[in-house]
């Protein structure tokens, strides 16, 4: 049933229906950017949403709405299209970062070989991050309370025998104990991550450092 590193269909439905948070929507949209088959599924799901919208019983709209719209569109300035620059990033992420490159972001060191940028904080302590780890680094062993999505943008890492490379997504939840990602040797591994609650780091040193690094 599960395909390694590919988001399950229930997430595609939730994206299409508008049920995801900003952070989850960004991760799902960026993930889909890598996989044409997921884009087709998403279109199918959005087609279902559109058909459901169309099949709603039509309700009365105010008699002046159309005239209001006409008077507004007469005053609209012509749209000026900003030249977009994706900096080699997938479109949804490039747009989200206002077309800044990764180097232009404000990276904070979290420890040896590990740095992060926090992009968004939502309700229920939900946080969106970019994480960068040096090739060969070991992320401290930890447990999760809540859901964590990790999308690889560059480089790769292993969890057990599963490898996650660019475009692949790892979903970890309450049941994921002793989560110890191992960054593969080579280029830096950069990931887009959403956490729902602070993760629980096992080692004493890690626990002491946690408040400072902000995970």
């Amino acid at each position, binding site marked *: 049933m599960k395909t390694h590193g590919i988001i399950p*269909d*229930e997430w595609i439905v939730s994206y299409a*229906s*508008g049920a995801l948070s*900003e952070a989850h929507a960004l991760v799902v949209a960026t993930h889909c950017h890598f996989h044409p088959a997921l884009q087709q599924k998403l279109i199918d799901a959005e*087609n279902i949403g559109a058909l459901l919208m169309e099949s709603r019983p039509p309700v009365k709209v105010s008699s002046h709405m159309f005239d209001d719209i006409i008077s507004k569109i007469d005053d609209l300035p012509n749209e000026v299209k900003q030249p977009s620059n994706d900096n080699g990033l997938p479109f949804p992420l490039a747009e989200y970062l206002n077309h800044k490159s990764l180097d232009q972001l404000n990276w904070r060191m979290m420890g040896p070989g590990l740095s992060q940028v926090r992009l968004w904080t939502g309700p229920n302590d939900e946080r969106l991050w970019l994480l960068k780890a040096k090739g060969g680094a070991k992320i401290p062993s930890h447990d999760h309370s809540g859901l964590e999505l990790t999308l690889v943008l560059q480089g790769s890492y292993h969890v057990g025998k599963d490898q996650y490379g660019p475009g692949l997504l790892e979903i970890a939840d309450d049941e994921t104990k002793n989560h110890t990602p191992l960054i593969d040797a080579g280029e830096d591994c950069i990931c887009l991550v959403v956490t729902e609650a602070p993760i629980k780091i096992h080692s004493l040193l890690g626990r002491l450092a946690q408040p400072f690094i902000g995970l």
Partner: protein
Amino acid sequence: MVFIRIKAMINAGRQICIGNREAFCLTAQGLMSDSLCRNLYKGSIMDEPSAFSDYSHEQLVILVARNKDRHAFHHLFDYFAPRIKSYLLNFNMSDQKAEDLTQEVMITLWQKADKFDPQKARISTWLFRVARNKYIDKVRQQKYPEVNADDHIASMIAPEKTDQNLKEQQDQGRIKMAMAALNDEQRKVIELSFFKELSHSQIAAETNLPLGTVKSRIRMAFQALREELGDYR
């Protein structure tokens, strides 16, 4: 033989469509099927609202994009505004708020009609996406990142070119049948997703079901709907 006759009609259309209509006709010829071009040519002569009932919604959007045709826009408004408002009212908002957002969605259609490519997307899907994102932006005050820019909606598949209106009516019938074919449990999770925008865990709380059950029901319902609507693209 039929082909030659259609070609002749297009040529006739091009000769008549001079001045400010010319670019449109040339574009139409380049972009659209022969039958669509012929219909649009017909529309440019019969410049009155009643003429639009023969057009598909996608064809009307092309008229809005190319000619800023207000009759065509009015026709789209009459069909979509009451349905978009109905969809938005699901999200516990005031009638006034739903009116305001519907108005914004229709203004976006007017502004961005030229970005819409009928070869790649259905206008109802495009409007659904705009309405969904407007609600999230204005009410939930969050962004909703999209996979592609709206002016290059990649990998969508062209709608059938023939009998557009008939096909639209059939599509409406098909989604109703496809929804009816789901079992009650599957229909419930799809409705809570699309009409309440509930997350998996919110659906679990609402229905008193384990999270895993909610997820598998959504998966199975989606699978069933995709099979029913397989060639609907």
